[in-house]
C-alpha cells in the first residue's frame, strides 16, 4: 500500500504521469477498435432477448438441478397436453431450481403446466407469463428514458461546467460505454431482460459520476490557464487526470466491488434472474465507464477546447517560451519536450526518472534531472510550492 500511496503522491505532483491527453489518438484507436468489434457483434449475432421481450412463459421449478430432472420436467411439459407449449427450453439455474421457458400461453394453459410440473416432482413452481406486447413497451420505455436522460445530462453538464464541449465529451463517453456493454452482450449471448436494460440506464449515471469527478479537477487546473505559461492547456488537463487517477481507481473499485458481489452471489445461488442481469450489465458498464472518463472524455474535451483561439494562442506562447528556454541552456529534455504532448514515454515505465512536469524555466533553468528513484532525493522543482498542484 505504501508503494501505492507513493504512486499517488507522484501522480499528484506530476512526477509520474501517464499521457492520457496527448496520446489521445492511441486511446481513440483502442476505443474505436473495441467499439467496432462490439458493433460487429451486434450485426453478426443477435442480442439474446429474454422472455420479457419476446413474450412467453417462464416457469421456475424448485428441484435439484440435475440433468435427469431436466429431462423429467421437459417430458412433463410435453405431455401436459398444451400444444402451444411444445418444445420448451429447460435449463438448470443456480443451486436449486430448473427453468422452463415456453412460447406465449393463456393463463389456463400455464396453470395446467404448473400442475404438470408439480406432479413431476417440482417443489414449488413460480410462473412468469408475459404477453407479447409487454416487451415492446419495455423497449419503448427504455428508449424514451435513454433519450430523456441524455438530454438532461447535456443540460446538467452544461449548467455545471458552463461548457458545451465538456457536455459533448461526456456524452461521447456515455455512448462509448453503452455500445461496449451492448456489444459484449451481443458477443457473449447473455440474456437481455428488463433488468439488463435497467442496468444499462444505471450505467449512464455511473459513467457520468466518474466523468464529473475528473472534469471537476480538469476545470480546476485549467481555470486560469492563460496566466500560467509553464503548461499548455492540454498538459494542465492531463495533470488533472493523473491527479485524479488514484481517486478514479478507488471510486471505480468501490463501485465495482458490491456489483461483483451481487454478480457472484446471484449467479451461484440463483442462476439467472433479475439480480444477475442487473449486476452483469452494471459490472461491464462501470468498468467501461471508468475507462472512458479517463481515456475518452477528457482527451476529447481537451481536443475540442484546443480549437479555441485563446487556447491555441496560449499553447503557442507556452511552446515558444519553452523553445526559447531550450535554446539558451543545455537541455536535451526540453528539446524533447518541445512537442506539446510533453511527456516522455520513459516516464511510464520508470517513474520518477524523468521530470514529467514541463520544464518551466521561468526561474530555474531546465536541466537534466538526476536519477533519484524513490530515494526521496532532490527532485527538480521549478515552480514555488504554493503555485503547484493548483493553478489558481
Amino acid at each position, binding site marked *: 500500500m505504501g508503494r501505492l500511496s507513493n504512486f499517488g503522491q507522484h501522480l499528484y505532483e506530476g512526477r509520474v504521469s501517464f499521457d492520457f491527453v496527448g496520446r489521445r489518438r492511441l486511446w481513440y484507436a483502442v476505443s474505436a477498435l473495441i467499439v467496432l468489434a462490439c458493433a460487429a457483434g451486434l450485426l453478426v449475432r443477435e442480442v439474446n432477448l429474454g422472455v420479457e421481450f419476446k413474450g412467453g412463459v417462464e416457469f421456475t421449478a424448485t428441484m435439484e438441478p440435475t440433468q435427469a430432472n431436466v429431462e423429467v420436467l421437459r417430458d412433463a411439459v410435453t405431455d401436459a397436453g398444451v400444444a402451444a407449449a411444445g418444445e420448451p427450453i429447460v435449463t438448470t439455474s443456480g443451486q436449486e431450481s430448473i427453468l422452463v421457458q415456453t412460447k406465449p400461453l393463456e393463463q389456463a394453459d400455464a396453470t395446467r403446466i404448473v400442475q404438470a410440473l408439480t406432479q413431476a416432482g417440482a417443489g414449488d413452481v413460480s410462473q412468469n407469463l408475459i404477453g407479447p406486447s409487454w416487451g415492446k413497451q419495455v423497449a419503448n420505455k427504455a428508449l424514451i428514458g435513454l433519450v430523456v436522460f441524455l438530454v*438532461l445530462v447535456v443540460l446538467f453538464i452544461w449548467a455545471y461546467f458552463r461548457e458545451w464541449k465538456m457536455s459533448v465529451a461526456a456524452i461521447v463517453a456515455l455512448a462509448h460505454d453503452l455500445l461496449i456493454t451492448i456489444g459484449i452482450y451481443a458477443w457473449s449471448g447473455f440474456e437481455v431482460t428488463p433488468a439488463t436494460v435497467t442496468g444499462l440506464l444505471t450505467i449512464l449515471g455511473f459513467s457520468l459520476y466518474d466523468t464529473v469527478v475528473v472534469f471537476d479537477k480538469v476545470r480546476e487546473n485549467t481555470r486560469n490557464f492563460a496566466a500560467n505559461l509553464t503548461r499548455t492547456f492540454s498538459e494542465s488537463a492531463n495533470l488533472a487526470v493523473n491527479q485524479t487517477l488514484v481517486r478514479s481507481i478507488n471510486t471505480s473499485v468501490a463501485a465495482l*466491488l458490491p456489483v461483483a458481489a451481487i454478480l457472484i452471489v446471484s449467479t451461484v445461488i440463483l442462476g439467472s434472474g433479475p439480480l444477475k442481469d442487473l449486476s452483469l450489465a452494471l459490472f461491464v458498464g462501470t468498468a467501461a465507464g471508468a475507462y472512458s472518463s479517463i481515456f475518452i472524455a477528457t482527451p476529447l474535451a481537451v481536443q475540442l477546447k484546443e480549437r479555441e483561439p485563446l487556447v491555441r494562442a496560449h499553447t503557442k506562447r507556452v511552446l515558444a517560451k519553452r523553445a526559447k528556454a531550450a535554446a539558451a541552456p543545455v537541455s536535451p529534455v526540453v528539446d524533447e519536450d518541445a512537442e506539446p504532448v510533453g511527456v516522455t514515454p520513459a516516464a511510464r515505465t520508470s517513474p520518477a526518472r524523468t521530470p514529467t512536469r514541463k520544464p518551466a524555466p521561468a526561474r530555474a533553468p531546465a536541466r537534466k534531472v538526476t536519477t533519484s528513484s524513490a530515494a526521496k532525493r532532490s527532485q527538480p522543482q521549478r515552480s514555488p510550492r504554493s503555485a503547484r498542484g493548483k493553478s489558481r
Partner: protein
Amino acid sequence: MATKASRPGRILIVFGLVILALYGGAAAAGQWKPRLGLDLQGGTRITLQAKDLEGGSAPQDKLDEAKDIIEQRVNGTGVSEAEVSTQGGDQIVVEIPGKQRQDLVEQVGRTAQLRFRLVWDSVQGQGPGPQVPPAPIITLPPETTPTGPPSGDATSTKDSSKNRAVSGWMRAAKPGGGGKPGDKPSDKPSDQPTDKPSGQPSDQPTDQPTDQPGGSADPAEVDWSALTLDESIGGSLQGTLPDPYQPALDTLRQQMADLQCPASGAPAQVEDVPGQPLVTCDVDGSGTKYVLSPAVIEGTHLDDAQATIPTQSIQWIVTLSLDGDGGDTFATVTRELVNTAAQFAIVLDGQVLSAPQVTGVITDGNAQIEGGFTQQSATSLANSLKYGALPLAFEVNGVEVQGPSLAGSQLNAGILAGVFGLALVVAYCLVYYRGLGLVIVASLGVAGAMTYALILLLGAGLSFTLTLPGIAGLIVAIGITADSFIVFFERLRDEVRDGKSLRLAVEAGWRRARLTILAADAVSFLAALVLYIFAIVVVRGFAFTLGLITIIDVFVVFFFTKPLVSLLARTQFFGRGHKLSGFDAKHLGISGRPVTQTGRRTREPSLARTTTRGEA
C-alpha cells in the same frame, strides 16, 4: 479555530438525534420489518393492458374507474392485502402478496360486458374433446338442472366458462334452429389459429356497396338502430328480417359459416358492439356458432349477480337480477319466445355464455345462468358481473407467480450479496485508508441505519415494498456512498500533499470536495429519477433505493463524515498521523515532516531539508 471547535460535535449530535427520530417514527408506525415485495415473499402479480385504445393511451378517469372495479372484484374474492394500481397510463397492476392465485387472472381481467341478444341463426358444433354440450333439458324444477359433464371431467372443472345454460323457467337448448351437428368448420376447432376469426365478424370488407342505405348486404353499413325489438324477435322466430335487413342477415349467415371457433380457453376474438349484430361462438369450445341480434338488454341493467346452489341442487349457478327497464324488456322477449324453438343468448365479452329456449314468461327480471359451474367458476363470474363491466377492454399482459421457496432463496441471495459486497468494500477501504477506513465504515453504518429507518417509514407511510431489484439498488449504492467518502479523502490527502497541516487540509479539502460530491450525487440522483419514471414496475424498486441512498449519502457526508473527520483530526491518533490512522506521512507519500505541520518551505526554512519537497 476556537469558535469552530464545538461545531462538528454539535452537528454530530443533531445528526444522531435525527436518526433516533426516524426510528422513533418507525416505532410509532409499528413497523419494524421492511415490507417485502412479491419476489421476496412470494405472491402474484397480474398486469393488465388496456387494448383497442384510441390515441394509444387510456383516459385517466376510465382507467381509474377500471382500477376501482378491479379492486372491488379482487376484494370480492376474499383476498385481503391485494394492491391494485395503475401504471404508465394504460396498465393496471394487481399485486397479491403471499398467495399464488393465478386463478384470479380471468376474473380480474375480464371486461364482464354482459348483454342479452336474440339468436337469429346458429350452427351446432362438435366439442373438441371430452365435453358434451348439455342436452336440451327442461330446467323448470331446479333439481333437473342440466348437469353438463360430471365434475370429475378434467376440462370442465378447470374451465369455468363451459357448458352453461340459462334457466329462469326456461329451457336450455343448444342445437339452434337450422344448425346441424358437425358442420364443416367445427370439425377441428382447436387447430385453428385463434386470431383468425377476429377480422371477420366486425371488420367487414366493404366490397359489396349498395345504393340502399338500409338494404346493404354489408352488416357494418346497415343502420341497425332502426330495427325494432319486435322485428328482431321476428328474426329469431322466423329466421327472416324485414326487407332492408335481409341481405345483411344473409351475409351474417355466410360469415357464421366461415367463422372458425377457437378451442376452449381461448378468449373472445370478436368485437362486441352493442348496436350491431354479432357473429360469435359459444364459450364452451364446442364450436357452436351464432348469428345474434343487436343487444336487447345491456349489462348496465344488471342489478346484482350471485353464485348460489339452489335448494335441492348440487350445481352451482349464477343468478342475475335485472333492474326495471331491463326486466320489462326481458319480460317482452320471454313472452314472445315462450314455447318456441327460438333462443336468446346471454353474451359475455362477445362470447355466448348460454343460449336457452324459453319455457316461461319471466316478469320479475330474474334469470340464472347454470351448467357446469364449479363453486370457483360460478363465484368468479358472479363477482365479475356484480361490480359492473370495465369501461375498457383489457388483455393480460403478464402474470407473475412467485412461489415461497424461490422467494425465500431470492431474499437470502439478496442479503448474502449485500453482506458480501459490504465486506469487500469495507476491507478495501480499511486496507487502503487504514484508520480513515474506519470513518468510512462508520459512515456506511450510519447511512445503512438511516436507509433502514427510511425504508420502514416509507413502508408504513407510502406502502413502499422492498423488492429484489430494490435490494440490488441498496447494494449498488454502497459503492456510490463509498465513492463520496473516497472523493473527500483523496482531496484531503491532496491538500496534505500540497503542504497543509492535517487540520487545515480537512477544511480545505472539504471545501473542494463537497462541490464534486454534490455534482456527482446530482448525476446519480438524476439517473435514478429518470430510471424510476421510465422503468417498468418490476425494476422500479432499484431506481427508488438508488435515488434514496444518493440523497442519504449527501446527508451523511455533510453531517456525519465531515464533522467526524474534523473531530478526529484533533485527536492524538489521527491528528498526529499515527501509523495506522491513514494519515501518517509515509502512507500519504510525503516524508520528512509530520502531518501536523505545514510543509511550506518558504515559511518554515527549517524544513528545507525535507528533500522531497524542498527543492530550491
